């Protein structure tokens, strides 16, 4: 049995004829029996009717109908005129251009983001992808090879050590903290320097010239690079790692947190001597 509250809840839907047959007849039954609800429903129904009846109903003015009819005729005429093939082609071409250079926000966003994503992905893959680096000895030897054959461009071509030190100090801002070693040996001459990278670590490259040979010095600061697998030898109290590639000898050592490498055609012992005498 339906209670009054339920009936009143559906009052609007009932009067608006929005109830399905089952609900409708259930409420109808209730209203027929309940005087209170009946009064309310009749009131609301009458009010609904009053609202409709007391709202003036306007007749569409004749001139508006005529105006619409004539505008429609104009539009039809225009449409038929533009339907000829030549004009159709022209219209298509204009629309084509505007369609192509559309400024819809969604398209603009895609047009901007897509290249950025592709470039970003390419940059990530080519620079940041963790890759297997070739053995450090090989890298050092090949770089020295291009230095020897004058194929390497040095950013700073100077024999002034202070200038080189200043150069690398500037580079400190880009995480390259370099301590330029002092060269005691007179036979050693600075040729220039550049910032570089050695086996994935930023490094400072210094080109030197000895009496008869060119020598490459690379300095990597704070490198945790593992060189322990290389052969090593104790010379004058310092442990040197060494290797050979393309006929160049490479000697590496650690000093504090810094990794040094010297590369030259000189034999290993001479390189270690240069290292121990010239670079404290």
């Amino acid at each position, binding site marked *: 049995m339906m209670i009054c509250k339920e009936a009143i809840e559906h009052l*609007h839907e009932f009067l608006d004829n929005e109830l399905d047959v089952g609900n409708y007849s259930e409420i109808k039954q209730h209203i027929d029996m309940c005087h209170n609800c009946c009064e*309310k429903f009749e009131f609301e129904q009458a009010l*609904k009717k009053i*609202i409709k009846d007391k709202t003036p*109903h306007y007749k569409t003015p004749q001139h508006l109908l005529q105006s619409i009819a004539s505008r429609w005729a104009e*539009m039809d005429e225009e449409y038929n005129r533009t339907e000829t093939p030549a004009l159709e082609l022209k219209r298509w071409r204009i629309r084509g251009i505007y369609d192509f250079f559309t400024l819809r926000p969604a398209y603009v966003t895609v047009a901007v983001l897509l290249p950025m994503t592709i470039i970003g992905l390419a940059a990530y893959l080519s620079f940041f992808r963790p890759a297997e680096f070739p053995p450090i000895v090989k890298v050092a030897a090949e770089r020295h090879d291009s230095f020897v054959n004058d194929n390497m461009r040095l950013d700073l071509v100077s024999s002034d050590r202070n200038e080189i030190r200043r150069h690398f100090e500037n580079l400190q801002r880009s995480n390259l903290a370099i301590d330029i070693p002092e060269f005691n040996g007179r036979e050693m001459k600075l040729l220039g320097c550049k910032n570089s990278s050695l086996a994935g670590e930023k490094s400072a490259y210094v080109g030197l010239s000895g009496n008869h040979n060119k020598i490459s010095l690379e300095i990597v600061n704070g490198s945790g690079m593992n060189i322990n697998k290389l052969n090593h030898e104790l010379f004058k109290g310092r442990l040197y790692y060494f290797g050979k590639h393309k006929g160049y000898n490479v000697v590496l050592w650690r000093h504090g947190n810094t990794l040094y490498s010297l590369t030259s055609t000189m034999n290993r012992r001479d390189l270690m001597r240069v290292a121990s005498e010239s670079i404290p």
Partner: protein
Amino acid sequence: MGESAGREDKTREFESAALEHIDSLFNVGMRMTGNREAAEDLVQETYLKVHRFSHTFKEGSNLKAWLFKILRNTFINTFRKKIREPKEIHYNDAEDLYLFNKIKTVKESDDHLSGGITNVYEFFEDEVTNAINKLPLAFKEVVLYSDIEELSYEEISEIIGCPIGTVKSRLFRARRLLQKSLWNYANERGYLKEK
């Protein structure tokens, strides 16, 4: 040739079907804009769009709702109006059947008001128009669609682009507001005084 003539017949048929509803559109246009000139412009613009976009009308769907939808969008675009439901400050169930409860209270304390409770409607006449016109746009339109044009909830939902539940709650709130407004008119006139 025959096919093209057939299509033309179909277009004519569609156009005359669309024009059958022009009085309804004009009346809603009058209420929404508040003046005759603007209503005429609005209806004309609407029918130009109807003509231009007649091919987008899906055969078998509700033509009247489609027309009202175009009218509504044209209104919003032309008058840069936003049709948003006003936030309700507070609402309690006692406000349902507002007018009924008020009138019943008055009747019970005044013997001069004879006859059935619905007779008191003789007191309102032109106020109905003003009461509707005073409603916020979002309420006004649902009252017009439902009470004047007698469209179904589903049709209204299609026109205003809201779910049926929203149509219902908005319509019921609109009617409540309308009843309050009608009561104020009756009270102002002094025919019905609250004791």
